[in-house]
């Protein structure tokens, strides 16, 4: 409880710093403060200009991109962790995806696909290697002694994957998923800015750039931060440790 209050206190302090900085700069056009930002946000919400559709469309794209990278990264990562030959086969393509600048992918995706699907593909491409590499690493770190135990008790391969490999990989997957949540938002919105589909937070940021409205950039960025925080909490909830019971004493 105390920890939660400390976190809230830190947020309040940084909001205060932002508020004071805006007063010092004293140019709400170039550097809007929290009050102007919230005003712009509420104006967007009540204007009936598709605020919720914009937010939900971006959120859906992010979730689709993340879901694709999570599922494929997990399946291929498990397979690559178990079979080194398969990992060697995938290594070149994963390296290419990792090393290629995101802008190259966005431009190519804009040429090859519908603008509305470009952000999903970019989110997938940026997150997949992270999930894949972490899962593969987690699998290779699986305790060989547990695998020997399972072999000895003649446990079927599917149960070994489910009961040992996937459980061992959980912290690695969680860590990768956490990174991907933040990254997913960034690259999806960036792809929306460039592809500018009909609906999307990135498209609204692009409009803000065209019409020189920094306060809109602040307001939509605030929306991204809130969504990102909520997804992070959801991830924490999914991966929560549901162990119970006190530490036992004695033998």
């Amino acid at each position, binding site marked *: 409880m105390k920890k939660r209050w400390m976190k809230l206190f830190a947020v309040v302090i940084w909001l205060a710093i932002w508020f004071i900085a805006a007063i010092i700069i004293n140019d709400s056009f170039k550097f809007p403060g929290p009050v102007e930002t919230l005003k712009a946000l509420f104006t967007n919400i009540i204007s009936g200009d598709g605020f919720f559709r914009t937010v939900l469309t971006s959120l859906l794209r992010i979730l689709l991109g993340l879901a694709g990278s999570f599922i494929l990264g997990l399946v291929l990562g498990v397979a690559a962790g178990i079979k080194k030959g398969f990992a060697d086969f995938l290594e070149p393509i994963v390296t290419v995806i990792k090393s290629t600048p995101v802008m190259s992918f966005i431009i190519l995706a804009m040429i090859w696909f519908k603008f509305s699907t470009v952000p999903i593909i970019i989110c997938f491409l940026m997150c997949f290697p992270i999930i894949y590499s972490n899962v593969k690493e987690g699998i290779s770190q699986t305790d060989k002694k*547990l695998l020997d135990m399972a072999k000895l*008790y003649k*446990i079927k391969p599917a149960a070994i994957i489910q009961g040992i490999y996937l459980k061992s990989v959980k912290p690695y997957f969680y860590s990768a998923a956490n990174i991907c949540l933040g990254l997913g938002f960034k690259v999806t919105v960036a792809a929306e800015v460039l592809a500018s589909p009909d609906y999307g937070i990135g498209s609204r940021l692009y409009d803000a750039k065209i019409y020189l409205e920094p306060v809109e950039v602040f307001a939509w960025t605030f929306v991204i931060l809130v969504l990102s925080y909520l997804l992070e909490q959801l991830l924490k909830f999914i991966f929560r440790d549901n162990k119970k019971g006190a530490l036992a004493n004695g033998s």
Partner: protein
Amino acid sequence: MALKIKNLTKEYNGHKVLDNFSINFDDNVINCILGESGCGKTTLLNVISGLEDFTAGEITGVNNSTFSYIFQETRLLKWYNVRKNIEYVLEDCNIEDRDARINKYLDITGLSKFSEYYPDQLSGGMKQRLSIARAFAYPGEILLMDEPFKALDIKLKKELTDEFIKLWKEDQRTVLFVTHELEEAMMMADNIHILGDTPLREVYRTDIKALKGQRSNAEEEIVLKRKLLYSVFTGQKEED
């Protein structure tokens, strides 16, 4: 069919851990393999169970056998609770009333009220109890034990060996019990095989007829202990 090993050789990178090694074990008794640390006892168990291949030789009496194994480190799944750790190894077993079987072994090992606990919430002794319960709940025809009480204090060791014997008397399987501690061997074994190293060989075998902690004849015990110690220290059998 009794478990027999004939001329077994096991090499690691050209180094022979087992060299032309032969030994016979009795069915449905506790066979103890006593030898100093690092002499190849664990390798022997791993080869018998099929966890490791062997280079040459013959093992008979294990065809299609199932094994239970109580390891030195408990090898429990820390993400599963006590009950689920046992359930996990029974998933593919053809057992009629699985829950009753699990309850039975949780009861005998005193773990019933901890069935929802996770391994890292248990003490070392409780973890090893769970490992024993898992091994007995699994219908392995041969039970392998690799110094399972090594890390425990003497009081706990006595408790657990007593519990083990209680469990075994209800379900008398062939047990191969590896240890380097004479007292442990004398507390549990029906027969003791003393192994000498480099190359590993059986130097002495004695049957002590399942006294298992209820030994009343102190003189007999002292004579036996002297013989065993002689073999352990000299790598030879003492002449009667």
